[in-house]
């Protein structure tokens, strides 16, 4: 089991946001997290790499355990990459430098090696020619692909994606989805929050429906889409079409 989450609880003040989440993700598996706004999808995802602290429970990624009160997150974060809705590229660095930054500072790889790594990652997302461009010279879709390349450069065991196409103009969504689909086919372990239902059905191996801070229903996406077991999932799928 690559990712194991046991009994995760999280409060924001009096708001009980995660109410005992259990989740298992195998190596190479693609998990799609769906659910209504406010159901706790982002909070769950952000707990997996320690961007959000939690009150109780356990997160384990490839043998690296994270407890409720842990502050040293480096070892875990070396194994977990993340891509954000808002891209969050570093605007003061060129595209190449964005990708090189972490290997350079965290892994202390030599500049030459970092550069060839960065070029390889950018080629992988189809942006080899943008090495010297700056983020604000790119389209949203290109920026998001750079963000993916940047995360991949750390060779994570699992990649977390939080609604990575939600901030994009509709015509730019597909290029990013194509990149994700390619990663999935190469065996990358992915946990993604998405509102693209068709994409979730096609690409994911496990569909997780969150409702009011709980995993309300989960399983094979084909089965769940065809025959939701709970009224809530049925209603949700009906609403999003």
């Amino acid at each position, binding site marked *: 089991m690559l990712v194991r989450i046991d009994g995760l609880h999280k409060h924001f003040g009096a708001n009980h946001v995660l109410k005992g989440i259990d989740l298992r993700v195998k190596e190479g598996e693609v998990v799609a997290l769906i659910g209504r706004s406010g159901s706790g999808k982002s909070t769950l995802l952000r707990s997996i790499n320690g*961007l959000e602290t939690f009150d109780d429970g356990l997160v384990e990624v490839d043998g690296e355990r994270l407890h409720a009160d842990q502050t040293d*997150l*480096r070892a875990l974060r*070396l194994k977990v990459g993340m891509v954000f809705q808002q891209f969050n590229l*570093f605007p003061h660095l060129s595209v190449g430098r964005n990708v090189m930054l*972490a290997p350079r*500072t*965290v892994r202390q790889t030599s500049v030459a090696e970092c550069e060839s790594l960065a070029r390889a990652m950018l080629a992988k997302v189809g942006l080899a020619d943008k090495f010297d461009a700056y983020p604000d010279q790119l389209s949203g879709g290109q920026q998001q692909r750079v963000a993916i390349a940047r995360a991949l450069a750390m060779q994570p065991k699992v990649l977390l994606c939080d609604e990575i196409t939600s901030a994009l103009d509709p015509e730019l969504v597909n290029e990013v989805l194509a990149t994700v689909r390619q990663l999935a086919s190469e065996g990358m372990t992915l946990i993604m929050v998405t509102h693209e239902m068709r994409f979730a059905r096609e690409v994911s191996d496990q569909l997780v429906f969150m409702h009011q801070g709980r995993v309300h229903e989960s399983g094979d996406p084909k089965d769940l889409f065809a025959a939701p077991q709970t009224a809530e999932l049925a209603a949700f799928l009906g609403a999003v079409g």
Partner: protein
Amino acid sequence: MMEFSIWDLIRNLGVGAAWTLGLSLTAFVLGGVVGLLVLAARVGPWPRLNRLAKAYIVVFQGTPLLMQLFLVFFGIALAGVDVPAWLAAAIGLTLFTSAYLAEIWRGCVEAIPKGQWEAAASLALSWGEQLREVILPQALRIAVAPTMGFSVQVVKGTAVTSIIGFAELTKTGSILANATFQPFLVYGLVALGYFLLCFPLSRFAARLERTFHARSH
């Protein structure tokens, strides 16, 4: 009474102004270094240290510079060490500057979107690396104009050190005013001296501010 020509006055005041400039530069540079440490303590992931740094800033921004200088001056003297005025002045003004710069820079750091910290954090950068590689380079851009602007306050702040006996421009002026019985002329020249030091800095800061706003809109 000695006879002073206007040139004697200007020459003597020039020496005082040089000390003013030297003290300003010292306080600004050292204050910047200490200010960076205070900034780190203020925004770092250490709640206790955050509160301590906040208190430091509140105290230095909430008390007169003169009291700070007196406390440094008499505080070091308590240890049985005789402090020269220039040293007390440099230490006091450095602390004063560090508190203000830390607060100015905190504003700049907090203007950087949280997503930048988060992106850097999820790439496994340590907090220090996040600050150094991602946040500060961006915060620096917005910090330049207000930092330049504050340098004017530092230059003017040095005038208060005349009270603990440091012979900078104001102190030199006081001595000359007493010796020549021409306080109007002497203090006028002293004011002119400060104006010549500060006005270009103010102008430069204002221009940086405008170009920055022009670029970011």
